[in-house]
């Protein structure tokens, strides 16, 4: 009986923690957006963060997008050839990449590369009292630390997604045209004819929404690190980073489905 009671109250306590964390995180996000209007955003920091989130992600993105495009084209080609519609390869690869795979895969790569690092960095800043120090210096840490990362993600992700799309389409070209000898004109013209502005728009809307999610969640986990009394210090950072990455990825995928179904 006692253990059942304990179990129930554990669930209750857990729920309370989750809800209060979600509430704090939204206030946190609101504060970041609010800090946008207080003074000129720190351009220098934004540039540095674009360098970190955008430029330095390019190599890993180029490789992953090329191989993703090739793998998708390979599978689609083998499916399409059975119906004698291999000429639809270009459009299929392009639409698939632009609407779904491009934004999602880009976001996943950025979660792996940037979200984890961001959470760890901000968590350690919290541990080393750097946020206390900023508060005491009357420096707005939302404006100075969080805003540049959010802005940089909002600028970088659409660009990275576009790069992913284009390189992926090129990967499909390699498989369809170079390896399987489909006509280059059919592949490319098919893409021009089929892909609509709407497709590109959906992909870009997704990338913007994902940008907010995958930078906001790790920042919140790092910033509120000290509230987790069970795991402090290095263990706290590792715990928060793991959670931030998992929650970022899951909420990104859920949001992807929601946007897809809303905008189909």
């Amino acid at each position: 009986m006692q253990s059942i009671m304990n179990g129930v109250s554990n669930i209750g306590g857990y729920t309370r923690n989750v809800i209060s964390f979600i509430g704090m995180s939204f206030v946190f996000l609101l504060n970041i957006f609010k800090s946008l209007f207080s003074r000129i955003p720190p351009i220098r920091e934004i540039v540095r963060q674009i360098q970190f989130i955008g430029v330095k992600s390019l190599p890993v993105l180029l490789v992953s997008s090329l191989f993703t495009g090739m793998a998708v084209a390979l599978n689609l080609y083998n499916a399409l050839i059975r119906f004698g519609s291999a000429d639809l390869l270009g459009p299929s690869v392009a639409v698939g990449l632009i609407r779904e795979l491009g934004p999602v895969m880009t976001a996943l790569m950025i979660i792996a590369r940037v979200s984890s690092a961001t959470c760890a960095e901000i968590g350690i800043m919290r541990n080393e009292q750097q946020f206390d120090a900023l508060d005491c210096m009357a420096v707005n840490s939302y404006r100075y630390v969080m805003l540049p990362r959010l802005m940089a993600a909002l600028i970088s992700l659409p660009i990275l997604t576009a790069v992913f799309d284009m390189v992926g389409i090129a990967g499909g070209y390699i498989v369809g045209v170079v390896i399987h000898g489909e006509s280059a004109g059919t592949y490319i013209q098919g893409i021009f004819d089929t892909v609509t502005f709407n497709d590109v728009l959906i992909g870009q809307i997704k990338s913007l929404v994902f940008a907010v999610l995958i930078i906001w969640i790790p920042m919140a986990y790092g910033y509120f690190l000290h509230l987790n009394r069970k795991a402090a210090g290095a263990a706290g950072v590792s715990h928060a980073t793991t959670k931030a990455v998992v929650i970022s990825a899951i909420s990104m995928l859920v949001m992807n489905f929601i946007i897809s179904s809303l905008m189909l």
Partner: protein
Amino acid sequence: MKNLSLDFVVGLFVIAGVTLLLYMSVNIGGASLSDAGHYSLIAKFENTSGLKEGAFVEVSGVRVGQAKSIRFDPEAFEAVVEIVLEDSVQVPEDSIASIRTAGIIGDRFIKITPGGSDEFLVQGDEIIETEPSISLEELVSKYMFNNE
């Protein structure tokens, strides 16, 4: 110097990225940045079955525009299609607009067969002569019915 190269790399990234984005939106996605350089005509069809908004408009097999909107006119019991054409394409007033199919199961598109008139249609004019879309099933059943 260190800062300069950082700015340069990031600037390059943003400029190249935005260019790529624009290319994707405009060329691949076919977004028109403005309405300038285009004019629209109207064509009424008895049947537009299978024609979608955004379908191509072709003259002599060359794509020159697209079907912007398809409405049903409840008074005339006709489908009204708004066609957007590039300014450089001039359509004689006695031209014929017909709905065709690319291949046997391909997409429907509008084919404009130019007439011989010296008068050209301008913004908002109507292409009077139209041919409705031909349904494959109707064709087949007609053929079978005639052979009986």
